């Protein structure tokens, strides 16, 4: 029994869990994937904006320099430009507002250095630039911005050269810039704790020194410590970037976002690196919360499923128990019907010979009344014998009468009958049994009990059951009191069966009307349980209650409506 319910419990529980958890997890997974994708798209977009803004700032910086140079070149006269003292003053003016210029030189169209300021003049003077690529570019385009290099100088620098359109002959104004201005701008993009940014030239050589590893003018690499690997990791070559792009890739086992944007004035490319874990940390945190909420949700579902299943199983158990009780009742009812049919048959078959015996004895009585027989010496014996026959016929007649009264009808019915008669008839069925056990049956009937309308045979069964119980409770030597009473104010009749038996312990008194409860040995009893008796009386609109005191006896009281 218990295993059957426990298996059922698990089956329902798992079914509920299955049906609620699968959609739940499905929603969870699709939401988190969607969230992931949206967030990554946002991050990519923000990186793109970031790298473009930074690139624009650097472009702006370079444009400002070029504008300054053009202004200088086109406002100074030829003698001023070729005079080193005047050139030195010009450099001073430039430096006053922009502390990036290291030196300035004037070169003629043959590539010869005419004058310079702010640097080692001799070294530069000896060099002819005619064959250098930048010289040709500036002559062709009027402007040149050179990669950072250490040529002719002790520290890295960038060069900007512009054409001076002099009337006599064109000159070239060239300045070198220390990298501080550009570095400052690039370093502003070193976001977070591991964000990095640097510039590479068209040959993928570093133009600024990155935050983590990489040497000036080398291919960009990620240092061992930053990459978390045994070897420095080379960045992918982004020098050929022509349009802003953002890529997600693994760099030495670390997932990173790389954003690249080309500068407009030069062939340089600005590269931004951001660690994926760091930039997506809100997403990770969100996932953590989502997982927590999911776990919580699952716990709630499991608890709910367990509660629901408990309720369900209890209901099923209850229904099973009720059904068992019902089928038990049905079985008892069928038994009673079979029993009553048999009793009716027996009674009927016995009735006819009994009638004949009775009449024959009556005829003998008639004959004895005649005068001639009175003189017979055995007259007294005859008379006595006939009277005995009549007495025992009367006894048998009563037994049959009671038996038939009990068996007459089992189907529910409504008929008018007298409670006192019913009690008489029913006690009559058990009088012999009681007498053998030396139990006295005391009758305390009220005279004013009215005829009631109810189911006679069912009530008779209940009373019979109570009487049987009373005899069992007494065992031998005792008194059963059967009584009736009319409660005028309620229009109900009351009858009771009291015994002087052993009584019922208080803790069992509550359970006495429950199905299957018995204190009797297996196989004993009338077959009609007290629960069924109780059910019958309730169905007829009455009540049945019990009072008992251990050692003193038990009283069952039945109340029935008059109609």
């Amino acid at each position, binding site marked *: 029994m218990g295993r059957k319910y426990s298996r059922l419990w698990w089956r329902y529980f798992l079914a509920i869990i299955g049906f609620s958890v699968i959609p739940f997890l499905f929603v969870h997974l699709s939401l988190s994937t969607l969230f992931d994708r949206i967030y990554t798209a946002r991050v990519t977009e923000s990186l793109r904006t970031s790298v473009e803004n930074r690139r624009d700032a650097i472009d702006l910086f370079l444009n400002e320099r070029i504008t300054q140079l053009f202004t200088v070149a086109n406002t100074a006269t030829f003698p001023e430009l070729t005079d080193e003292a005047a050139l030195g003053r010009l450099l001073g003016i430039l430096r006053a507002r922009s502390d990036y210029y290291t030196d300035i030189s004037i070169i003629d169209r043959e590539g010869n250095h005419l004058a310079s300021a702010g640097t080692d003049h001799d070294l530069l003077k000896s060099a002819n630039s005619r064959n250098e690529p930048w010289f040709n570019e500036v002559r062709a385009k009027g402007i040149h911005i050179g990669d950072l290099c250490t040529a002719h100088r002790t520290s890295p620098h960038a060069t900007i050269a512009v054409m001076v359109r002099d009337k006599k002959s064109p000159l070239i104004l060239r300045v070198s810039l220390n990298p501080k201005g550009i570095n400052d701008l690039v370093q502003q993009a070193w976001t977070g704790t591991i964000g990095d940014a640097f510039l590479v030239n068209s040959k993928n050589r570093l133009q600024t020194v990155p935050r983590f590893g990489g040497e000036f003018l080398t291919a960009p690499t990620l240092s061992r410590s930053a990459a978390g690997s045994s070897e420095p990791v080379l960045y992918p070559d982004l020098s050929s970037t022509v349009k802003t792009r953002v890529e997600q890739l693994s760099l030495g086992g670390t997932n990173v976002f790389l954003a690249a944007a080309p500068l407009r004035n030069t062939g340089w490319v600005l590269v931004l690196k951001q660690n994926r874990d760091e930039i997506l940390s809100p997403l990770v945190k969100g996932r953590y919360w989502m997982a927590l909420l999911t776990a919580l949700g699952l716990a709630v579902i499991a608890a709910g499923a367990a509660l629901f299943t408990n309720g369900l199983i209890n209901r099923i158990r209850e229904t099973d128990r009720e059904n068992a009780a019902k089928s038990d009742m049905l079985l008892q009812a069928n038994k009673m019907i079979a029993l009553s049919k048999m009793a009716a048959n027996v009674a*009927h078959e016995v009735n006819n010979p009994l009638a*004949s015996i009775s009449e024959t004895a009556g005829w003998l009585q008639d004959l004895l009344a005649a005068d001639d027989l009175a003189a017979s010496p055995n007259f007294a014996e005859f008379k006595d014998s006939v009277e005995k026959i009549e007495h025992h016929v009367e006894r048998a007649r009563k037994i049959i009468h009671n038996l*038939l009264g009990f068996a007459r009808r089992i189907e529910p019915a409504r008929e008018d009958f007298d409670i006192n008669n019913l009690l008489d008839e029913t006690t009559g069925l058990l009088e012999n049994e009681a007498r053998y056990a030396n139990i006295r049956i005391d009758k305390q009937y009220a005279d004013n009990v009215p005829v009631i309308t109810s189911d006679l045979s069912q009530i008779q069964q209940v009373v019979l059951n109570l009487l049987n119980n009373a005899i069992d409770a007494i065992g031998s030597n005792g008194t059963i009191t059967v009584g009736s009473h009319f409660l005028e104010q309620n229009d109900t009749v009351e009858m009771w069966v009291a015994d002087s038996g052993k009584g019922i312990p208080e803790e069992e008194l509550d359970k006495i009307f429950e199905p299957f409860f018995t204190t009797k040995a297996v196989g004993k009893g009338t077959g009609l349980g007290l629960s069924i008796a109780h059910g019958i009386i309730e169905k007829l609109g009455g009540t049945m209650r019990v009072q008992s005191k251990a050692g003193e006896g038990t009283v069952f009281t039945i109340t029935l409506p008059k109609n």
Partner: protein
Amino acid sequence: MEGLRVLFVDDEEDFRETIVKRLKARKIQAMGAESGIRALEIVKDNDFDVIVLDVKMPGMDGIETLRHIKQMKPEIEVIMLTGHASVEFGLKGMQLGAFDYVMKPAPLTELLDTINQAWNKKRGLH
């Protein structure tokens, strides 16, 4: 009860004959019939004041016999004789015009009382 004519109909021979004897001993002109058919034959040729009819008989039962008697001679009072299990037949008989019913086995005095009442009714004496 002199002059009272009674027909007693019952299939149980010993019972019937004994009753008839006892009625005769009480100066009643009593006759017996062992079946409904036989009873109808007798009723056709004889007049009775009261007929006592057992409800349970093989062949034609008491109710059927009662119907025929009441058609034939409605003035005759009929008393139904029932077992305890067939009281409803007694009641049904009364609905069909029987005077009363008596449950058997009953003491003869009870039967005589009822017969007497029926006779009184027939004579318009009640």
